[in-house]
């Protein structure tokens, strides 16, 4: 038995490496978020959040871009939510295991993995040019809807499937129809998971840049109609940083974006937490 390192020592060494990798991962996140916030938060004040941009964003505020972000995301969710949730109900409750279901699953997998710039290409060719929606909130929102949809579908499907079979059996035994059972029993039990899915889809829409690069335009004004061009925060940050317009404002925009994403993450986790606790309490 000639070994260079004894099993006991290699156990110790590997354990140290595993701990190190875990801690390193945490440090990476802290460093990125910390760096953005430390440099960005001092820029943020009332005028920055609620003011109009001056000189293409070199000074002034980012109000139109915040509005754009939420406007485009809202349009995306209005379209993606019914498609995603409906698809999830269909997959979980109506479809069995057949070729069509496999195709739907694979379809939504592809949809979830297509590079965002390809969505951008499609959005440009289809919404902007073919349907003549132009560079607008509508074109951008619809493009983002396609990206948010698979996220919503998958999360909602899992949560609908996790509703115990006994619930629906109980309802069916009382003579309720399939849809009554789904609507009255299954969906209420699955709603926290469905909402989590919608929030995750929302996060995906808020943070996306490449897909809206050539679909929403680059307006500096607050968009009013859905046919108005807009400029969501990620796009503004990209412009500020790469065209060297204003580094402080780039940091500020980045910090606002990070704060929005952090809030969404915390809310989602709180929801999931409450949901799990509620399920345990039963």
């Amino acid at each position: 038995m000639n070994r260079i390192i004894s099993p006991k020592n290699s156990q110790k060494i590997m354990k140290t490496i595993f701990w190190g990798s875990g801690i390193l991962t945490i440090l990476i996140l802290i460093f990125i978020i910390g760096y953005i916030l430390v440099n960005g938060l001092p820029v943020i004040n009332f005028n920055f959040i609620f003011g109009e941009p001056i000189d293409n964003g070199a000074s002034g505020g980012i109000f139109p871009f915040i509005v754009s972000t939420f406007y485009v995301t809202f349009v995306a969710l209005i379209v993606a939510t019914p498609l995603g949730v409906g698809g999830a109900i269909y997959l979980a409750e109506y479809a069995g295991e057949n070729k069509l279901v496999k195709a739907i699953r694979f379809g939504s997998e592809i949809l979830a993995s297509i590079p965002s710039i390809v969505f951008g290409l499609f959005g440009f060719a289809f919404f902007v040019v073919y349907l003549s929606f132009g560079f607008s909130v509508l074109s951008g929102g619809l493009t983002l809807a396609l990206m948010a949809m698979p996220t919503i579908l998958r999360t909602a499907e899992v949560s609908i499937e996790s509703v115990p079979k006994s619930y629906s059996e109980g309802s069916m035994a009382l003579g309720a129809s399939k849809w009554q059972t789904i609507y009255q029993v299954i969906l209420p039990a699955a709603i926290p998971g469905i909402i989590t899915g919608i929030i995750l889809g929302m996060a995906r829409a808020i943070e996306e840049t490449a897909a809206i690069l050539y679909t929403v335009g680059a307006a500096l004004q607050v968009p009013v109609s859905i046919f108005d061009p807009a400029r969501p925060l990620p796009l503004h940050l990209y412009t500020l940083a790469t065209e060297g317009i204003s580094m402080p404002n780039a940091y500020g925009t980045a910090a606002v974006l990070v704060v929005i994403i952090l809030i969404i993450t915390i809310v989602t986790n709180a929801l999931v937490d409450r949901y799990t606790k509620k399920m345990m309490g039963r």
Partner: protein
Amino acid sequence: MTEKKEDKFIQWVLFATGISSILIIILIIAFIFSEGLPAIFSIGLFNFIFGMIWNPDIGLYGVFPMIIGTLLTTFLALLMAIPLSLCCSIFLAEIAPPNMRKLLKPTIQGLAGIPSVIYGFFGLVIIVPFIRIHFGGSGFSVISASLILTIMILPTIISISEDALRSIPFEYSEASLALGATQWQTIKNVIVPAAVPGIITAIILGMGRAIGETMAVIMVTGNVVQIPGSIFEPVRTLTSNIALEMGYATGLHYSALFSTGIILLTVIVILLLLANYVNYKTKVSIGGGYL
């Protein structure tokens, strides 16, 4: 409407939403192909893929340097991300005490949630200057992009590998420990080998994410169309090429950008099929028979 009719109607609506993802995929593929195929026909598939020069001004559309750019940044990122994320997923699944898990889980979620433009921005203000100061050149380079991509694909690989490791029955570890194996011997010889298909799937999906990433890469690679002489030189990736030139492209140039989209789509679909195949193979071999 009677109840029965209502039920039928709703089922029909749900079916329509269900197949919408297939319809959307078909629509996307149809549009990308119909816009992109003309360029491939006019340039020739071989000249397009293996052409060394991309110069729309003189009508040369070769994406080979960009393919190399994408592959280089992706593989270098995988090289760094695989060890770190495997260690991290093993840590999460086997070693971390509950408190540490509670800290690490949201961390990974956080890393997955950071917008790619923030990663790009971070790369631009931290990594690019770091490379410039310590390794020379402009700092806009293959390595800068790979470092950023490494961080970006960590959450994908970690969370899927962790699931794979967790799905290995505890009986296996129990059996190994009862034979006097150390925890590391158990992990190395029993748990990880059994989880290999899941880990491969994780790596494939991480690779897909790296290939498809646009914004973060565009902000740190320098976007020069060339086959780089070293990892400290600038490159341009397939995705960046589309993002950079869509704004002003017309005619054949416009179509050639969609052709680039066709390449990306094809690669992603192949990777997904591969990932599904690996998973399918596992289910078959777990069922019994020869390993």
